[in-house]
């Protein structure tokens, strides 16, 4: 039986209560145990990279944090809410208020403009229309993404920056990213990685980033490896960053 992961935050950015607390999380599918009493915490202002081989359960972990998958046991507490207990409206409110997600391919609605894509997240969080669009416009300007045109016409870097803008527009306490640089060239990858790992301190939130890329993981405050259902600390030299 693998040793259950128990990596407490080595780096804390001043908050006493962790923004994300995963305790004894167990998840199995088809007889295979993907998460075995896994434990990890991420504090406000901290970025943590999760690495691990394919099929190790990294994306499943994100699904559990998003409330898309229900774990067999354990708790996932985000800013005081136990995600495993949330249903319906409370789960929807949790998703748009407390969490921001960056997908591997951006996952923008192709028929909408970048501005509309970013504003959509704010509108779904019941924000005022004018303020939603104003904030979306400001974020896109800061990140250097055009507002208009179809989103599927954006370059890979623009698409991911627009996805970042969408993830942070509601000022969530936790941002999670699933292979956000997986589809990018090296230069764009570094720009997006830099942007992402800079977010926790710039916006006082926590960041959990799932990546295969050691260079990206090395930019995070901490890196952990998910192996046999448990987290272990990963040692990554800063030199790996291009």
């Amino acid at each position, binding site marked *: 039986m693998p040793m259950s992961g128990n990596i407490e935050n080595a780096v804390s950015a001043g908050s006493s209560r962790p923004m994300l607390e995963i305790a004894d999380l167990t998840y199995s599918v088809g007889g295979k145990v993907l998460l075995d009493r896994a434990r990890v915490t991420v504090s406000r202002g901290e970025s943590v990279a999760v690495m691990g081989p394919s099929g190790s359960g990294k994306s499943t972990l994100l699904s559990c944090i*998003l409330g*898309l998958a229900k774990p067999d046991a354990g708790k996932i507490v985000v800013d005081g809410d136990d995600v495993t207990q949330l249903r319906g409206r409370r789960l929807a409110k949790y998703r748009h208020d407390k969490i921001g*997600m960056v997908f591997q391919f951006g996952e923008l609605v192709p028929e909408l403009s970048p501005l509309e894509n970013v504003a959509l997240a704010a509108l779904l*969080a019941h924000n005022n229309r004018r303020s939603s669009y104003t904030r979306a416009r400001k974020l896109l300007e800061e990140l250097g993404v055009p507002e208009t045109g179809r989103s599927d*016409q954006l*370059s890979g870097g623009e698409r991911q920056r627009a996805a970042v803008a969408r993830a942070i527009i509601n000022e969530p306490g936790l941002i999670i990213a699933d292979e956000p640089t997986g589809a990018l060239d090296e230069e764009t990858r570094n720009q997006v990685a830099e942007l992402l790992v800079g977010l926790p301190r710039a916006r006082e939130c926590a960041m959990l980033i799932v990546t295969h890329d050691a260079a990206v993981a090395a930019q995070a405050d901490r890196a952990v490896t998910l192996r046999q259902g448990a987290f272990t600390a990963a040692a990554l030299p800063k030199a790996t960053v291009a």
Partner: protein
Amino acid sequence: MNLRSRTFVLLRLGWRAGTTSEAGTLRYIALTLATLAMCLSSVALATVDITYAARADREVARAPITHLPDSPGKPVALWGASFDTVDDRQYSVVFVEPLVPDAPIPPGLSAWPAPGHAALSPGLAEAGHGESITARFGVAAGVIGPAGLSAPDERLAYVRPPQGLLPKTIMQEIEGFGSPSQPPLGDALFIQSASTFRLVVSFLMIVPAFVLLLVAARTGAKGRDQRFALVATLGGGRYARTMISLGDGILPIVTASVGGLAAVAALTSSDLRIPFVKYHLLAADMKGSVTTLVAACLISGLASAVIVILSDNIGPRRRRSTRPTGKAKSPVWTAALAPVMLLVATRGPDLFPARSPLHMLTNYVGVAGTLLMLPALVGLCAKFFGMRLASAARRWRLSGSLLAGRWMSSEPRAVARATAGIVAAVCILIQIQVWSSFLGDPVREARTAVAVAGDGMQLVKVKSDAAPQQLDHFYTAIAGIGLPLKLVNSPTTRSLRITASCDALKRADLPCAASAGTEIRSRQPRTRMLIDIMDSPGYTVSSIVGDPAAATEDKDSFSVVALVSDNGAALDRPAIEAAAYRTLPGGADVSRVGGDWLVGANVNADHARWIVLLGVFSLVVLALACTLGALGEYVRWSRALAPISVLSGSRRVFWSSGAWSVFVPITLAGAVSIPIGVLLAYPQTEGGRSSVSADLLQACATGVALIGGAIYLWALKSSRDITSKWQPNGN
């Protein structure tokens, strides 16, 4: 943000997404047509109820209030209903005789007809134009107005016979008009019941429209499913997803609903003559129920919106993935229900007595259920077929087939959508043919028989209350028209005796015998047919020279007079009919040999015309469903294949993948549907009541292959257009 403002923004986002999505135009067309079909079907269903209710009101208004011995009112008139025939169809003739000067006039008449006069409905005057109908009852001196007719085309006559020719046995004393409890009169005797009509409209209009709606709602579903999965991940609740979905589909739904309302406006503004069945829908009836019609239309629009929203919300099932794929599971349960529904359709009716409403209803429910579930089964078959195809293609290095096989195995629901129309079309076409055969075959046989008999012999059935003197007058009146033969069937003597002059017997190719007793035969087909009609098993058939007017009858016998042409030419039937009404109480039934058979068969033939008309609507709608469903899926498929085609510089990949993913599923659906359609028709064909035409099955197979080919070519054209516009984007 207040709810109104948020709703507006979400609707607008849905609108934007819908108008610019990859299959946006196709879905717009599909949803518009589907909602319009739903609106028209619902309006048709409402029209059935409105029309039957309005007919019933007018039928009550003209129904006589019978004077009973203990009723306080006084009799004001004599009233009696009988039948006559025109254009080989029966209609009602009402004999009237006012008893007091101020007797209330029947609805639709401006005055009581004078003795020897008649008032005809416009429908009867038109139908009987070639049969001198205006001279049949004496003097045609009036027209029955709309208030006296259940429908504008109804065939009806009010006849006031000359003095002494009232058919007393059928006359009753009446106190006026407006009885709600009289037996039906006029067209009500010959039309289908409202419940049957509702069932036919539901099956041939609502079900196909619903199939089209399901296909249309899921056109280009892949992109929308991803969008909704993403919105859910971003924290969009059910309300947000509903509003975005509504915004996406609202334009075509509103467009179609406006189209439906325009149809309602047309129905209420002027009378409409429905082509092919030539039935008049009265604007006045529709105006009285305009709220119902508008409600039917709006409810259809609303139902379409609900289906669109549900399909968007049910489509993207929750998956254990951090990527919003919006991928749906295989429709295993729906597919498993298809054989169950097939069993309900074929064996379920056996649980109830034949011809009972539940017997028919079970069959219809089973057929409708099978049509809705069968596409899922086709989809599942395609999934396994696709797996095999991909495996074989990989072995034989066939890239297009490999792609198509993978697509078919991963998208069984898409295959189900693409083939739903063809499955339903084939099964409904077989049902229509079986019904038409059941209702229409007898009329074809009857027409053949009547054609063989020709017009050189006419049968006259005299009503029972004719006095001998009146019969003499009748024979005198027809003396110059033809030679009479009287046929008397007597159960007492177990004989059929034909009495006529020797000349008349010779004309009928019958022997001139001085006494009865010899079994006779005739070489004339019409005479043989006449004897077959009048004969009974085990009876002796004989002919005897004598005066037909004096031929003896006992109380159990029944008789008919056959008039035969003395020179072989056609007899003047209108003249015989006019002579009968001029000399006999209540006239006489005059028809060609086999004419009764034709008259009875024509009632069913007229019903069959409705089935054919509604069936055409059904097939057009289902053909649209098939085309749009297949194209909708292939457009997305083409976009996915565009880079491969561009990079390889060859479009051959489209040829083979299109053949496998468009042509093969459609022909496969046709191949599955034909035997299942035959099975579904089993309750109708059981015991030889009707039959499935082999020609139709052959035509079905050819038609499906042609449709599959046409859609395949269209799909190739679409893919060529998409490829020529494709450009790489993103990194």
